């Protein structure tokens, strides 16, 4: 940096960093005060946090080193990462759920852009899903069978949320249409279903699916625990989506229905070509709100002792060796869930922009 500046520039107080600061942070006395308070807050919180989380932290040490150290103990995650991510999946076979998760994330990633949507992608999904199923369950030469009771951790969370949400969405749309139907039987059934499910918390549905339901089955027949939870999540989320979609349907002006009718479209075509494309677009923001909360709700399966990623982490914390490092563990979980939720809402904003018919 040189001191000799010969070129005349605008006063330092109005350009560059100083200028920006004056304009944005210190333009009125009240704002100056707020800025100072915020700065003080950051100054007193950030350095200790950075020191705790990064500088003094232990990353791969045994737990005893952690207890003696002053910083964060990320070792609680790194030392147990395979149990946290894959649960009871046989230790030497854990590359299989890892590959399945990568496959799923890859497919989701490619499906995010509408210009890739084609038959090819559809086939890719089918092939991918079959491959994931085979990888997870095994039972073919070279891949020993692994029962669903041993599935856990991140693959379970993704399974419950991805399939739960994709199945709940069409169910919700059908229920919303049913509720708007002119046929009384269908209408009443839809209303009863939606109101009954919405009147009950998800926890009680999960309890019913896992505890009461088996007592009604004939002796000796048990239905897969994961499937029971999955169905409960789908039924629950579907009812909520139905109400959101109904809002969209009611927002479509009557003229649209009449226009479709005068074109001679039947009910199915009216809905498919005219009403639903508009209605579903309107309700993207609330729908995503529901999907995001449903994604987080999958962690409730903890209470029926399914080992999703939350439960595996909590299990690690109840080992005396790692007891007491709950801060680090929950920060890790928060980051995981944040990544999921944030990418959903980010995608929805993108979708809204792409589908917008207004001129910009």
């Amino acid at each position: 940096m040189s001191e000799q500046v010969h070129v005349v520039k605008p006063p330092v107080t109005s350009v560059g960093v100083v200028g920006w600061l004056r304009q944005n942070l210190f333009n009125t006395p009240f704002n100056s005060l707020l800025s100072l308070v915020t700065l003080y807050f950051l100054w007193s919180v950030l350095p200790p946090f950075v020191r705790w989380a990064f500088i003094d932290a232990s990353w791969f040490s045994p737990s005893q080193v952690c207890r003696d150290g002053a910083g964060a103990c990320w070792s609680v995650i790194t030392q147990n990462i395979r149990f946290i991510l894959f649960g009871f999946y046989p230790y030497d076979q854990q590359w299989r759920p890892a590959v399945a998760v990568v496959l799923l994330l890859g497919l989701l990633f490619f499906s995010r852009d509408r210009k890739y949507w084609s038959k090819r992608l559809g086939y890719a999904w089918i092939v991918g899903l079959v491959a994931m199923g085979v990888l997870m369950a095994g039972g073919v030469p070279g891949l020993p069978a692994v029962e669903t009771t041993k599935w856990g951790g991140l693959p379970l969370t993704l399974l419950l949320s991805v399939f739960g949400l994709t199945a709940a969405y069409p169910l919700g749309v059908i229920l919303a249409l049913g509720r708007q139907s002119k046929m009384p039987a269908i209408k009443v059934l839809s209303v009863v279903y939606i109101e009954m499910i919405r009147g009950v918390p998800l926890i009680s549905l999960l309890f019913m699916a896992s505890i009461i339901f088996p007592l009604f089955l004939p002796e000796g027949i048990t239905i897969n625990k994961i499937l029971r939870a999955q169905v409960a999540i789908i039924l629950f989320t579907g009812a909520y989506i139905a109400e959101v979609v109904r809002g969209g349907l009611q927002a479509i002006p009557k003229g649209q229905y009449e226009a479709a009718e005068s074109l001679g479209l039947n009910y199915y075509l009216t809905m498919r070509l005219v009403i639903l494309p508009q209605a579903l677009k309107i309700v993207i923001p609330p729908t995503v709100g529901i999907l995001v909360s449903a994604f987080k709700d999958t962690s409730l399966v903890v209470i029926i002792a399914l080992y999703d990623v939350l439960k595996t982490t909590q299990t690690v914390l109840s080992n005396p060796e790692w007891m007491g490092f709950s801060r680090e563990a929950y920060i890790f979980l928060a980051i995981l869930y944040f990544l999921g939720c944030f990418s959903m809402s980010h995608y929805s904003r993108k979708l809204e922009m792409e589908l917008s018919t207004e001129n910009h």
Partner: protein
Amino acid sequence: MKGLRIVVVLLAVLALALPASAGTLDEVRARGYLIAGVNGSVFGFSMPDEKGVWKGLDVDTARAIAAAVFGDASKVKFVPLTAVQRLPALQSKEIDVLCRNTTQTLTRETTNGLNFVHVNFYDGQGFLVPKKLGIKSAKELDGATVCVLPGTTTELNAADFFRKNNMQWKPVVIEQAAELNKAFFAGRCDVLTSDSSQLAGHRAVAPNPDDYVLLPEIISKEPLAPVVRHGDDQWYDIVNWTVMALIQAEEFGITSKNVDEMLKSKDPAIQRFLGVTPGMGKALGLDDKWTYNIIKQVGNYGEIYERNVGPNTPLGMPRGLNALWTQGGLMYAAPFR
């Protein structure tokens, strides 16, 4: 619709095909493995390690049952269950046996239709206090703030104890065991109360374990035992005598290391026990080598105890009530004859 019909028909056929009265032993044998309900997050009793392998006293008890039935301790699947789920899971036949630190009580045996076998761990509620308070007995706890988990018998027992002794107390109720721990070690309460097996674990992870002391009073009885369904006496006998065999083996001094030499023992009681003189296994509907398999593959009760909760583990619990009757404890097996 067609798919649904097929499923319904299939379920109906299955329901007819399965004889409702098949004994648990036959079902387990036909299936090829035992299904045991466990807790899943109590260190020392049943918890997976970082490789997902189940460890613990309850887990080893279930392995012993598998060894008795199949001659192979690995033929068991563990189903982690919550406190609410555990009894319905057994009633609805999702599991064959429940080894999940469950306290034997009268109502559980009668109204819930369950049978508890021989106790595999005698627990009881105790108090953990910091040494610096200088308290020697729980009777001196008048006016104390007490950290306790909600919704358990622990909370009720503590209330009873304080009322009975005309003492005041302020409960600090925290849902998660790990958080409860933190609150106690941070000094938010004077006393931590829980089952003494749990307290030992909590004390082990204290910033400085020597600063804390367990008070001598045990204010409740918590006999923890494996559980089976009512109405299948053969299965009850098998589970019951498996637990007894673990205890009896320790009394005989038979361990997983010396069990092969013990086969040559001249003691008729040991010969009967290990099936050298046949008869005991047959009576239960098992192989005569059932005790040999249990001890060879899982060990005797003492070995299981030392491995999971004993003084050399993080829990560091002395045998106490769980010592053999010959050493002042309550572990006492009926004779094998």
